[in-house]
């Protein structure tokens, strides 16, 4: 009954308060909305029947992909952080009645700098992007840009173009002829397809420009400050060029008391083992589907008759930005551990401690991460969970990678001991604190305490998607200590 009920709600365009819905219901409502859209495929009169069949197939595949994305463990759709971003989103919707008011926002648990839409009245924005933005106006510009893609039906247009190419008999014939030839297949295919790729790249760039322009109109109507919003392009440039703010690991981690670690934290070579190879200038624009950030900024600034020098724009932080950032940062910390990435958990925990020294959550994650690192390093499995150095990533992250690789299990234990002092004062009784305590009980061989805590917290740990940390612990203790209450799935 439930899906039908919501379907009816959507069809009859009845609005309801999201606040009253639980996360499950919110997800169900979007899923139902998407399923309805999946069924509501309208043939394009310009296309042939065969082309429309293909278009319908693509349409359904696209929605299936979106449905797969709507996994409770992969998205955020409740809590104060979501509500804050959603308030900005709703402000844009309300100010622009032409936008379908059932358009919904989904925050993806990903540290990647990205936002996207698939043309179905759902806008996806990643935590990594929200983390890099400084104020509501910047966030509004990103959200409005994605909504504009929907309004302008860019996804649909791109799919139609793609269908036209795929069903183009002359192209198909040419490809067939090329594949029949034993020699020079790859070159011939390149020759045939690259000009079309270039063409679609141009179309894609034009889509970006037009989504920027319409997005700007949307946020203007929603009373956001335009120059403040345009400073978002600075964040984009920082991301494109991998620029990062200076990050002092020694101060942030209070390493002065560990002289050997000060050396490890300061020893860093930015270059790869083969030196730095210059990137050929024509490589990037050839492949990039998005226009250069600076070009996009200049177009919008000209449109608004504003200063066209990005450097003159100072990124302003909202008064409430600190609270928002703390919420986003906390989500990113959870996400990093959930994604089994101990480097990102360590990196964002350091940043969290730097910005919010009074919030124990940064120390919780840092200590849990260090305890995990010590265990995995000892077993020589840590390589699965930490990032390697790469000259193409931001320097502060690269430094963190080098530092984490250089830490010995004993270093990790010493640091964890230091930061756990901060966690003891914490009133939180989270899964992360349980992880720390479980490691402590394991290290001190207090297996009775371990058992009690294990049995009481395992469900919560699983729910938080950090059971992967304990999976190896379980196997290890089962084989070494023969603890009967453990039940690992041993290969």
């Amino acid at each position: 009954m439930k899906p039908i009920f919501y379907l009816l709600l959507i069809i009859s365009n009845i609005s309801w308060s999201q606040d009253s819905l639980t996360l499950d219901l919110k997800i169900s409502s979007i899923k139902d909305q998407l399923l309805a859209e999946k069924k509501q495929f309208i043939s394009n009169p310009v296309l042939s029947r065969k082309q429309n069949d293909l278009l319908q197939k693509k349409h359904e595949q696209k929605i299936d992909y979106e449905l797969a994305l709507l996994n409770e463990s992969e998205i955020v759709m409740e809590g104060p952080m979501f509500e804050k971003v959603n308030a900005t989103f709703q402000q844009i919707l309300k100010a622009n009645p032409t936008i379908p008011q059932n358009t919904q926002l989904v925050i993806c648990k990903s540290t990647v700098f990205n936002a996207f839409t698939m043309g179905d009245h759902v806008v996806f924005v990643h935590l990594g992007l929200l983390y890099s933005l400084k104020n509501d106006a910047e966030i509004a510009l990103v959200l409005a840009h994605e909504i504009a893609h929907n309004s302008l039906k860019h996804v649909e247009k791109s799919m139609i173009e793609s269908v036209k190419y795929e069903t183009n008999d002359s192209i198909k014939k040419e490809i067939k002829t090329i594949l029949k030839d034993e020699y020079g297949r790859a070159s011939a295919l390149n020759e045939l397809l690259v000009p079309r790729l270039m063409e679609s790249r141009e179309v894609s760039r034009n889509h970006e420009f037009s989504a920027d322009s319409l997005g700007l109109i949307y946020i203007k109507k929603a009373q956001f400050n335009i120059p403040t919003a345009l400073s978002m392009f600075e964040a984009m440039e920082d991301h494109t060029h991998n620029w990062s703010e200076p990050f002092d690991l020694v101060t942030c981690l209070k390493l002065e008391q560990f002289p050997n670690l000060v050396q490890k934290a300061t020893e860093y070579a930015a270059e790869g083992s083969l030196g730095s190879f210059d990137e050929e200038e024509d490589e990037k624009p050839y492949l990039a589907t998005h226009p250069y950030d600076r070009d996009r900024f200049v177009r919008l600034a000209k449109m608004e008759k504003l200063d066209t020098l990005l450097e003159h724009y100072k990124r302003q932080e909202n008064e409430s930005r600190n609270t928002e950032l703390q919420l986003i940062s906390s989500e990113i910390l959870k996400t990093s551990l959930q994604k089994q990435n101990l480097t990102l958990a360590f990196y964002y925990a350091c940043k969290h401690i730097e910005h919010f020294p009074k919030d124990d959550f940064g120390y919780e994650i840092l200590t849990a991460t260090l305890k995990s690192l010590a265990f995995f390093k000892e077993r020589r499995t840590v390589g699965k969970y930490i990032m390697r150095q790469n000259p193409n990533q931001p320097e502060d992250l690269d430094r963190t990678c080098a530092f984490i690789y250089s830490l010995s299990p004993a270093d990790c234990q010493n640091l964890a001991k230091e930061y756990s002092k901060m966690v003891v004062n914490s009133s939180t009784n989270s899964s992360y604190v349980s992880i720390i305590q479980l490691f402590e009980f394991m290290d001190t061989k207090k297996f009775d305490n371990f058992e009690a805590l294990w049995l009481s917290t395992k469900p919560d740990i699983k729910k938080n998607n950090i059971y992967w940390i304990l999976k190896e612990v379980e196997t290890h203790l089962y084989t070494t200590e023969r603890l009967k209450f453990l039940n690992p799935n041993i290969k």
Partner: protein
Amino acid sequence: MNKIKLTSLLVLMSVFSVFAQKKSVPNVLNFKSAKDAGEIIENNKLVGYYIFYLKEKVDKKTSAYEVEIYDDNYNVTKSFEIIRPKNTLLLEMVYNGNAFMIHFYDSKTGYEFATFDRSGKATGSKKIATDDISKWDLARVQQNIASATENLNIFPNGKDGFIRSTFTKNKKTGYEVVAYDNNAKELWKYGSKETSDVLEFVEINDVSANVLSATVSKKKNLMTRDVTMFCLLLDSKTGKLIKEMPLGNEATGLRSLLKSFVNEETGSIFLVGEYYKPKDDILKDKSQGLYLQEFSLAGKELNKKEYKWKGDIDKFKNEIDPEDKKGDRPFYVFFHDVVIAKNGHIFMIGEQFLKQVSAGGVAVKVLAAAAGGSSDNSAFEIKVANMVVIEFDENKSLVDFKLVKKKSKSVILPAGMGYYGTTTLGYYIKSQGDFDYSFTSNDKAKDNYEIVYIDADRKTEKTSTTKADVMVGVISIKGGILTQNRVPINCTSKYWWLQPAKPGYISVSEYFRKEKKIDMRLEQLTY
């Protein structure tokens, strides 16, 4: 799969997904020839990896290939296309800090030594037709391809060129050392005399700014046991002979040369090896002991010290192996590498081995005979035992003879091999990859060396019931101080293999059959 692979299986690295943690190679249906991938070496240090794969056939005779270059963290650094004869193999890639030299081989067209600058631009090429390649050289290449072992014939000559050793077709077979600049232009050539009536082979040991040192062995014919060895010193800039120093002779006793080191700062060259009794056969008899010998760069002997196994070396032994008590059957030591630390200490790294009657081999033979057939196994086997580290201080005084315990294993010999001398059998099992020694990871600049071997004893501690998936032994020499560790490595998949990685690390690869992917990661050897 329980063996460290010296050659990489990074075959499909070109389709790496952009994973920042472990490197994931999806859609791996099977492993192609390991010769398609390998390590990039710069002055004995692993600095990266390459892969080489077919892109398309250009015409009947040629194909387009892609060469992809990765740094030591598996990050894609550069890739470029090259057109070469079809069925071309990439045998070796060496980096000198400014340029790459790539050794291509095609069975029809022969060798090509091509140089590329750091942008992937071809800067030169030197081709050698198949007819002009010595049969010895071709045999060596074929063996390397078949056994998937690395070619190690090209060395950087500073940052401005490369040096290569090869065989030539003299009256008998000779050797040649050839230097190229970064444009593959031949700079100089030095080789055995064309009229030489003996077989001559060369192995380059070290190339410094001014001196190249190599081991030259000479013998009248293939079957003779009468081998004479020399240390060859050449001016690495001009190729002019500095000196060819004989390493003993049959009358005074032969010497083998394990390694030589050129020290430009002290103006000396240092030789390390084993010495033999007069009339002893280097491939049959056990050596009398070890020697350290120093020469000036002009080839004048500065000092020489000899250390007897019995009397000099044995008394430093940290542990007596029960097998050793049977004085008539002492273990032989096969030396894998020599390390000279910055404090002047010299470490000779070896592994004990012994020929013995194989109970299993004999039983199989008896059973086979009883059944009226025969067995391909020999009645003999080689027992491979502990690792050995012999240490000398900066005054060339012997200071330690350490037996590093590991679980011994037996290698059954094929029929007929049991009648060969034990030393020869040492070379045989080395060629078969049956020693537990795997590789030495060098970082001369940081004075860090790590010798890695497999230990079949997989328990993490003697008292522990836990078994690691693989136990790797690591002998670390940091700043001239030796430590040893047993490192447990754990894997998720049943299919895994280990490969050399950047100094201080080991590469662990796992193949997930169901997901058809390979995950590769770097693990630190010691902390």
